Structures are given as structure tokens and as C-alpha cells.
């Protein structure tokens, strides 16, 4: 097993406020890792550190074999990222977005052309290839955004609430794409507010007040907490939150 993400006592403070409090975990190659927590639990801060966007206060973190302190810029080349809020350039067409991202990630002209053809066909966007992204329905946009985020076959892709507001049918298709990527060996690090989606992950980590309060397979978590589903597990843990939603 190859470890793709490894943290030890990773911590981020903002003044007196400890946003992320000594979290320690490992994620393996190809794993679908669900990162859950209430609003304000520290998910975004942790994710920003792992993406090389925020320097940790203390502790260790390695992503795709790279240390987040020493070479944060190198991390960016080896990861993909998409979120609900920002993913594609709305004033560029489908093709332009693919080319732009593929170019940024350093693909050659030949690779860019092949990749563009492949993605447009796979997503069934042939007739929309020259349409501005802002005119596409959100569901298609999110599927395209995911494809673009892994256009350079990164070791790990970070997905921040990728399916918010998407219709249930497209949400299922989105998860099919996640499964496919994971089987190709891309590690998936995903946050979501849809707790039925947590069941699709290989392992789930639940954060409360900046700390990891649970980390296991969905099956094992339900056993440990004597719960019928992950929503119940989440309630049990989130109720213990002290710093709350503030």
C-alpha cells in the first residue's frame, strides 16, 4: 500500500483560536476518503493546508510524497481541486476550459488535444463543446469540473462539496466518475453535506472542534456507534461540539 496523504499532529492556529487541533491520519492510494464535520469544525482549514495553500502552525503533513512546509508549490502540480463554489471559468467554453487547465498542468499540445477529444466524448458534450460553461446546467458543469480537476492524472484530488445543489440523478453519475477515478489509482479526498454520500466512501473521518473524533469505514462506524446510518453517527458526534457554529 502506498500512502498518499500522511499527517501527524497537524495544527493551525489563528491567534488564540485553534482551527485544526493535532490531527493525525493517513490516506492510501486509490482510497475514497470522506472528510466530514459540522460548519466550523475545521474541514476547510485542514484541506487548505493539505493543498499547500495555508502553512501549518505545527505538526507534519505529506501529500503525494511532498512535504507541505518545504515545497507547497510542488504539491499543487500533483493534486487536483474542485469545489462547488469555484471550479470552471464561466466565460470560457467547455473546450477552452479543458485546454486552459490542461495547459496550466503542463500537458503537451498533443496531450491537450487528445485529452480534450476524450473528455468531450466521454461526457457526451460533443454538441456543447463550444458553448460557454455558464450556459450549461450545474450538473454537467460539475461533471466537467471534476474531469478537468483530474486532467493531469494527479495522485490525489480534493473535492470540496462537489455535488451541492445537483439533481439526484446527476449526483449518482458524479459518484460513478469518482469510483472510476479511484479504480485508476487516483486518491479521492471529499467533503460533503449529503450524508448518504458518506456511505460511498472507503473510509470516513469526522471532525469536531478541530479534532478528529472518528475515523473508520462506514460499516465499522455504524457498528461502533450502534447507529443505523452515518447521519446518526454524525449527530452523536456533532452534538458534543463545544465551540459550536461560531
Amino acid at each position: 500500500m502506498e500512502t498518499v496523504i500522511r499527517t501527524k499532529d497537524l495544527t493551525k492556529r489563528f491567534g488564540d483560536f485553534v482551527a485544526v487541533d493535532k490531527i493525525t491520519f493517513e490516506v492510501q492510494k486509490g482510497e475514497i476518503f470522506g472528510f466530514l464535520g459540522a460548519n466550523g469544525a475545521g474541514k476547510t482549514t485542514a484541506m487548505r493546508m493539505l493543498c499547500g495553500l495555508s502553512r501549518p502552525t505545527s505538526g507534519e503533513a505529506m501529500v503525494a510524497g511532498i512535504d507541505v512546509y518545504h515545497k507547497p508549490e510542488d504539491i499543487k502540480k500533483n493534486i487536483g481541486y474542485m469545489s462547488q463554489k469555484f471550479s470552471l471559468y464561466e466565460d470560457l467554453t467547455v473546450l477552452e476550459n479543458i485546454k486552459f487547465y490542461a495547459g496550466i498542468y503542463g500537458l503537451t499540445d498533443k496531450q491537450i488535444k487528445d485529452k480534450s477529444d476524450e473528455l468531450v466524448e466521454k461526457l457526451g458534450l460533443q454538441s456543447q463543446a463550444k458553448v460557454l460553461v455558464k450556459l450549461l446546467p450545474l450538473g454537467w458543469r460539475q461533471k466537467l469540473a471534476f474531469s478537468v480537476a483530474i486532467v493531469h492524472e494527479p495522485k490525489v484530488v480534493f473535492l470540496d462539496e462537489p455535488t451541492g445543489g445537483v439533481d439526484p440523478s446527476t449526483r449518482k453519475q458524479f459518484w460513478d466518475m469518482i469510483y472510476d477515478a479511484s479504480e485508476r489509482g487516483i486518491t479521492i479526498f471529499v467533503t460533503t453535506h449529503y450524508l448518504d454520500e458518506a456511505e460511498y466512501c472507503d473510509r470516513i473521518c469526522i471532525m469536531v472542534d478541530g479534532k478528529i473524533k472518528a475515523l473508520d469505514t462506514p460499516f465499522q462506524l455504524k457498528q461502533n456507534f450502534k447507529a443505523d446510518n452515518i447521519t446518526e453517527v454524525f449527530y452523536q458526534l456533532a452534538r458534543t461540539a463545544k465551540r459550536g457554529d461560531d
Partner: protein
Amino acid sequence: MSAITLNNITKTYNKGTVLAVDDISFSVEKGELFGLIGPDGAGKSSIFRILTTLLIPDKGTASVVGFDVVKDFQKIRGIVGYMPGRFSLYQDLTVEENLNFFATVFGTTVKENYDQIKDIYIMLEPFKDRRAGKLSGGMKQKLALCCALIHKPEVLFLDEPTTGVDVVSRKEFWEMLARLKAQGITIMVSTSYMDEASLCDRIALMIGGKILSLDTPAKIIEAYPEKLYAIKSPNMHKLLRDMRTNDEILTCYASGEYIHLSFKNTTKENEGSLKKFLEEKGETDLVFKETIPTVEDCFIRLLGHTDGNSN
């Protein structure tokens, strides 16, 4: 008299090129908690903006508490509360200042109508001197609800109040709505979370500017045309892929820890033949059972396909 009525409402944008609301008619009874359920782009926000008189429909008529949304727009504005999808309070004003501002605009005071917001405001009180822009998502949502309620509206319009909010805060929010409903306020709320649909009296399932179905959640579930089954095994993704190669299956997709499926023709032999089929594919430890559809299952069924052409 219905609290809200829409007759053949159509709304387009960009000189008619984008059809947002497509000939929609329905009504909401007084005191009802009515849900518009659908993904982004379904037309939910356009309907809210038409009913709150912020947008004029291309075609059709609509009324709120008997007032026409075009002719009587000023009357409507005084008696409805509206919480838009995007946080729209004054970020540079404190919690208390925002509330005072909205009370004043509507010709009342916080003191006069305090009982209306008390339950919600006590959760905000520790932060009353904090600027609205510095609040967390859950707190912003509570403040926005207080500001929409401070003039004791007859009808409350809540556009995706729980989007991006965690499950714990979402649950709290729906408990607040239940209490408001008990006071007799008519509430129209939209959401893209299918699990919230069952908390409404009636729901309209929407996509692409159209209503797919409109009824009580129980009736919508009852109307599910096929028997629905749930299946699971240790390797869910392989199971799903294997099932997609089976000709007898009408639809199958992941749903929580199970895969939901239905057959093209429901017969007694279905279960046995599917199990045999999957065992030949090397599946072991299968759990297979009949299951009751959820609103999400109904929505997917109404979309009619899971082949990538929706939304």
C-alpha cells in the same frame, strides 16, 4: 382563499432565450408548509422572485393572499417575509443593527414583535454586537430568518435556506419552521436536499422550469410505479457495474449503504434470477430486500433516466 396562486406563469431571461419557468400553475393553502424541491436551475428562485414582486412574469398571473403580484406589489411587500438564496443582510451592520433596520423599514420595532422571533433570536443573542459578515453560516441563516419574520408576515418565502449548511443546523432549521407553521404562517420553502421534502405538507418536484409532480410526500411515494428493492454486497462498485449488465433491471443506482433497483417486469422470479446472475459474476454475501421508495427515488424515477442527460 389560497395563500398563494400561480396561473400559467412563464418567465424567460436573455431576450427569451433562457426559459426559467415554463407555464406553471399551482396554489398553496393558508397555513401550509409547501416545498419546491429541485436542483439548481429548476426555476425555484424565479418563482420566489415573482411571488415577492421582485420580478415580473412574461406570461400568466399570480397572487399572494389575494393580491396580484404586479398590480398590488406594494401591498404584498408589506405582508410577506423573504429570505433570498444569497445572504442579503448588511454585512457591515451588527446582528442587532440589522434586525432594528428591518423592523424600522417595515414600520415596527423589535420590541413590539419580539415574541415572533424570540425562539430563534435567543440563539443569536450572544453575538448581537458582531457584524453580520463575521457570522458563521448557521448564524447568518438564523439572523436572516429573524429579519424576514420581524414584521409578522402572513407568508414566508425561504429560498434554499439550508444550502451548504451541515445536517445538525439543517435539522434545527426545520424544527424552527415547524414551530412557525404551528403559529399559522404560510411557508413556501425551496431545497435541493431530497430528505427535507418529507418535512413539508405538500411538495412540487421541479426541474428545468417544470413541475414533475405535486402532492403530499406520502402520495408521491405511493405513486412510485414499480416495486423497489435494495441490495448490498461487500464490493458495492463492482456490484453496481455487474447489475448494469443485467437486461431485466430497469434502473439501479447507489442509495446510502444500498443500491436501489427495480425490474422492467416485476415477477416472483426476479429475486431468484438476479441472485443467480450475480453469483455467477462472483458476488458473495448479498443482502437483498424490498424497500420503500424515498422522495429521492421518486425524483430519479420522474426524471426517467440516469444516463447523463438530466440537468
